C-alpha cells in the first residue's frame, strides 16, 4: 500500500555441491537409446517393407509380374557373385563421376550473369528430353549420356554454388582481403569453403538428378555396345523375361542411391559442414 518497500534483510547461502542432488544427469534406458538412433528406426522400416513385399508376392504367386523379395535377393546375390551386376554398376558410376568432375570444373569458372541467365533457361528442361538431340550429336555411347548427365547436374550445382558465394558474409570477405588475398587464392581459400554448405547441397541434388537420368538414358540404349550399365541390364532382362533380375537391377539402383546419399554424402557432411558448425 505505502510507497516504501518492505525492508528485508540481505541473505547469503552456500550452494549445494552437485554430487548431493538426486539426479543431475541420468543415462536413458537402453531401449530409448536404441530408439533414438535414426539408423535403427530406418532399418526397422526397411525390414517391414521387405516383409510386406515378400507376403504380397507370395499371395500374388506370379513371378513374371512381381517376383518375391527372396527371389530378388537371390538374383541380386547371383549378380554380385558372378560380377555382372557390380561391373554394370561400375560402368554407370564411372560415367557419372566423369560428368560430375566436368561440372565442378566448369561451374567454378563461368561468369555470374551468364550463369544466372543460362540456369534459369535450362534448369526446367528435363535432361532426358535432350537425349534424342544428344543421340544425333554424339551418337550412341558414352558421349551422349555424358552430355545429358552434365546437363542434369550442371544447373543444380551452379545455381547452388552461385547462391552460396552470394551468401558469404561481408565480414568474412573483408577478413580475406585483410590478409591481402586476391583473385583465385581469395576464391579458393575464402569463398569456396565459406560457400561449401551450398555447394554440397548442389552436389546432392545434382547427384540425385544425374543418377535417375543415367538409368533412364541407359534404358533407351547401352553405354556402348557390349558393356551396358545398370539401366541396360534391366532392359535386357525384361526382354528375356528374367523378372527377378529386373528387380535385382532395380534394387541395385536403389542401394547405390542409398549408399551414396547416406554414406558418401553423410560422411562428407559430418567431416565438413557439421564439424565446422556451418550447417544451415
Amino acid at each position, binding site marked *: 500500500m505505502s510507497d516504501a518497500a518492505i525492508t528485508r534483510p540481505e541473505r547469503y547461502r552456500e550452494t549445494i555441491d552437485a554430487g548431493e542432488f538426486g539426479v543431475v544427469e541420468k543415462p536413458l534406458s537402453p531401449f530409448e537409446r536404441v530408439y533414438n538412433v535414426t539408423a535403427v528406426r530406418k532399418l526397422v522400416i526397411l525390414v517391414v517393407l521387405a516383409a510386406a513385399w515378400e507376403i504380397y508376392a507370395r499371395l500374388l504367386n506370379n513371378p513374371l509380374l512381381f517376383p518375391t523379395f527372396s527371389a530378388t535377393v537371390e538374383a541380386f546375390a547371383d549378380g554380385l557373385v558372378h560380377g555382372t551386376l557390380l561391373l554394370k554398376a561400375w560402368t554407370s558410376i564411372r560415367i557419372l563421376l566423369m560428368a560430375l568432375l566436368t561440372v565442378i570444373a566448369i561451374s567454378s569458372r563461368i561468369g555470374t550473369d551468364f550463369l544466372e541467365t543460362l540456369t534459369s533457361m535450362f534448369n526446367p528442361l528435363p535432361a532426358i528430353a535432350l537425349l534424342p538431340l544428344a543421340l544425333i550429336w554424339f551418337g550412341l555411347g558414352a558421349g551422349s549420356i555424358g552430355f545429358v548427365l552434365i546437363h542434369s547436374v550442371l544447373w543444380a550445382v551452379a545455381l547452388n554454388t552461385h547462391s552460396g558465394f552470394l551468401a558469404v*558474409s561481408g*565480414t*568474412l570477405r*573483408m*577478413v580475406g*582481403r*585483410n*590478409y*591481402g*588475398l586476391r583473385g583465385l*587464392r581469395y576464391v579458393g*581459400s*575464402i569463398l569456396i*569453403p*565459406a560457400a*561449401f554448405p551450398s555447394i554440397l547441397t548442389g552436389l546432392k541434388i545434382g547427384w540425385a538428378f544425374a543418377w535417375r537420368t543415367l538409368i533412364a538414358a541407359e534404358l533407351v540404349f547401352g553405354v556402348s555396345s557390349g558393356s551396358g550399365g545398370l539401366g541396360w541390364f534391366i532392359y535386357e532382362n525384361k526382354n528375356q523375361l528374367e523378372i527377378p533380375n529386373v528387380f535385382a537391377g532395380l534394387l541395385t539402383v536403389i542401394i547405390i542411391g542409398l549408399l551414396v546419399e547416406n554414406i558418401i554424402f553423410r560422411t562428407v557432411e559430418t567431416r*565438413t559442414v557439421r*564439424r*565446422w*558448425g*556451418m550447417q544451415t
Partner: protein
Amino acid sequence: MSDALLDVRSVTLQYKTRDHLVTATYRVDFQVFESDRFVLLGPSGCGKSTLLKAVGGYLEPVEGEIRLKGERVERPGPDRMMVFQEFDQLLPWKTVQENVVFALTASGRLTGKAAAEKAREAIARVKLAKFADSFPHTLSGGMKQRVAIARGMAMEPDILLMDEPFAALDALTRRKMQDELLQLWDDTRFTVLFVTHSIPEAVKVGSRILLLSPHPGQVKAELNSLPRERADGEAAHALEERIHNMLFADEVEEDEEHHHE
C-alpha cells in the same frame, strides 16, 4: 608533425545505398602515434566505422588522404589488421590455431613451423591455449573475439583496427575483455585504433579520444584520456560527463536543468 604513424588528412567519405549518396564523414583529420590507444567515439551515424574501414583500405576517400608510415593507403593489407564486431569473423572451417596460422601464411608473413609457433604464442597470450584445436562454433562470443585479437596481434601489424569489438558481448564479458586488452597493451604496447559508441569504454580503453559529431561525422574534439591508474574512479566519471555533454550539447540545451540534479 610528419612522424605520425597514421595520418588521416581532411578525409571525406561517401558511400551509396540503394537510393542515396551518403556522406559519412566530412573533412576529418587526426594523427595516431606509435603505441597510441586511439579511440574514435561518437553516436551511431557519425561514420566512425566507415572511417575505420577507410583506414583498413576497404573504402576510398572522395577527398583527402590516409597515410600509414608515409605511404598512401589504397587497399586492404596485413599491415592493418582488423578486428570486427561480428562473431563470424573467424573462418569456421578452421580451428583456432589454424585460423591464426592461416592469417600468417596467407599474408606471407611467416611459413611452416614459425607460423605455428607464433600462432601458439598469440593464442596462449589471450589464454585460449586449451582451445587451440577447437572449431570457432564451439566457442563463446568472448572467446571468438579473443581469437580475433590474437590473430590480429600475431600478425604484428603497424596498427590494429578494432571496430566495436566488444559491442556484441554481454556487459560482464565486455569489462573483462577491456581489462585483458589493456593488459595485452601493457605487454607489447601495440598501436590500436578503436571504434566505440560507449563513452565509458572510450575512457577506459583509450589514451586519446577523438569525438565525432553525427550526420556527417566531423571532428568535435580530441581529448587526452586519463592515465591508466586513475581510469576507474571519480576522474573517469567526470571525464565521461564532460564527453557526454560535448557530444549531446545540442540536445541537452533545452532540458539542461533537467539533467543536472
